[in-house]
């Protein structure tokens, strides 16, 4: 039996995004943003949008595949896919699902995308206005536990306390994103650097590990990538970016109700990371650049640990700013500014940045980058991750 894998089978041939806005400031409707990003990705790949035959998204994206297909005049829709789960847990999974469709022959040319206009729709940072809380929320909302920051805070408290990791480690993660954004004109935080003093003086969102700058922004915009068979990518304008490994899901009872996941202080990547590395036939030491989804900096720490990039026993020493910066840091991370400072496009902007790094066209280029890992939204479940590489890594 042949090996069941996506390694080297598909490539990202094009990337696209809209201008990025502070939340509520997009002049365009969410659906129009989605269309703009998708058309940009097609143009980048040199592919007519009418040739697209599939769409994959996540986070309950409201821009439905059939509506996109109709608006774009797509001749034949062969794949439409929504990955369960909120936030950016599914960012890598959307690319993986597009890849699976392409590799299996169900479709030929699939867009993975995310579109968000939170002025048009609701924000995330406040609890929903409901009279009575149902399901898990019945055991959380009456105690004032309603927002994503709060949903994850106790995982972070548990892990950081257990391992004696200091808040300064999280500050380095935040400052790395802001540092890189200063060299990226696309970034919402371009021209707004973050100093140590500014971070330390920022208000508490949730004690003991969420200051304002530990939390992602909320933004408007859209991002898209176009996934094609590896053979086809060779004939397209850009140097192909190959999918080397990917996985999604969650470990044992990671979604157990009311904070009862057996492995609680977790980003829920232990099995996902293992499966991703196995498919990629690589490990964390092979990676040149990391894009690690920040919903909250504590989640980035957990995610880095569970993917093997950081040892909790040396996290305080390793997670210092200089180690995280392009071009020369030991682990350049979130090189476009990430969710914190480029744009909270639920991680799709990180997939685009991974492709730029492998093409050699990033604003904060890591020299000769061959392998980039994208770690999707942590602490939700299901989660997902992927590894991309240049032709040399096949």
């Amino acid at each position: 039996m042949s090996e069941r894998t996506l390694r080297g089978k598909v490539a990202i041939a094009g990337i696209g995004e809209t201008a990025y806005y502070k939340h509520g400031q997009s002049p365009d409707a969410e659906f129009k943003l989605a269309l703009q990003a998708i058309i940009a990705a097609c143009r980048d790949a040199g592919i007519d949008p009418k040739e697209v035959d599939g769409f994959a998204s996540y986070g309950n994206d409201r821009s439905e595949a059939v509506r996109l297909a109709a608006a774009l005049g797509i001749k034949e829709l062969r794949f439409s896919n929504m990955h369960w789960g909120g936030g950016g847990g599914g960012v890598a999974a959307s690319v993986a699902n597009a890849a699976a469709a392409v590799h299996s022959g169900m479709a030929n040319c699939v867009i993975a995308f995310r579109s968000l206009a939170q002025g048009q729709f609701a924000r995330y940072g406040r609890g929903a206005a409901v009279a009575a809380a149902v399901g898990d929320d019945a055991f959380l909302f009456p105690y004032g536990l309603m927002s994503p920051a709060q949903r994850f805070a106790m995982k972070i408290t548990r892990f950081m306390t257990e391992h004696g990791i200091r808040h300064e480690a999280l500050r380095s993660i935040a400052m790395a994103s802001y540092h890189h954004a200063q060299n990226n004109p696309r970034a919402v935080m371009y021209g707004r650097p973050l100093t140590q003093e500014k971070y330390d003086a920022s208000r508490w969102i949730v004690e003991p590990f969420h200051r304002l700058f530990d939390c992602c922004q909320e933004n408007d915009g859209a991002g898209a990538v176009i996934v094609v068979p590896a053979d086809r990518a060779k004939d397209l304008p850009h140097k192909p970016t190959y999918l080397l490994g990917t996985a999604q899901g969650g470990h044992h009872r990671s979604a157990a109700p009311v904070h009862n996941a057996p492995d609680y202080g977790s980003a829920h990547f232990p099995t996902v990371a293992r499966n991703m590395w196995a498919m990629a036939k690589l490990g964390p030491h092979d990676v040149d650049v990391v894009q690690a989804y920040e919903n909250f900096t504590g989640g980035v720490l957990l995610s880095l640990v569970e993917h093997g990039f950081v040892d909790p026993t040396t996290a305080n020493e390793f997670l210092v700013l200089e180690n995280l910066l392009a071009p020369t840091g030991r682990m350049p991370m979130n090189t476009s500014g990430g969710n914190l400072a480029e744009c909270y496009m639920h991680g799709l902007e990180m997939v685009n940045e991974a492709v730029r790094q492998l093409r050699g066209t990033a604003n904060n280029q890591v020299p000769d980058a061959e392998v980039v890992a994208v770690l999707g939204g942590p602490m939700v479940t299901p989660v997902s991750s992927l590894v991309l590489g240049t032709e040399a890594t096949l």
Partner: protein
Amino acid sequence: MSTALPPGLPAPAQEPVAKPYWDGTRAGKLVIQRCKGCGAHQWGPEWVCHRCHSFDLGWEEVAPRGRIWSWQRPHHPVHPALNGHGPYTIVLVELPEAGNVRMVGNLICEPTAPVEIGAEVEAVFEPHDDAEPPYTLVQWRVKG
């Protein structure tokens, strides 16, 4: 008696799958699911036992005490009822006498009080008698 948080937060919808729990809290008892097939404690309420797949889930009173597994102290108001209220403390409490299930509640303490993982806590039943329908929340305080 006073409540840990100001009035106006969403009430729990006392759904059928959780009704014995809510009935228990009204009587000042902590009652959670326990599988009649394999004896596993289970929380939150679910339709099937995650361990043996029995649908025959019973309910059992458990000791209203545990220890702090983790905690947080929100400052940012996440609901209009919390505007201007200031920080409050949420704990995740592990119940060693009930299969180590965990429950979320407020820790009754000063907003600057240190919180220690592992500290022993006991349940405080907080009635909301004026709600329609009335309900009782389970809060926690450090054992004296």
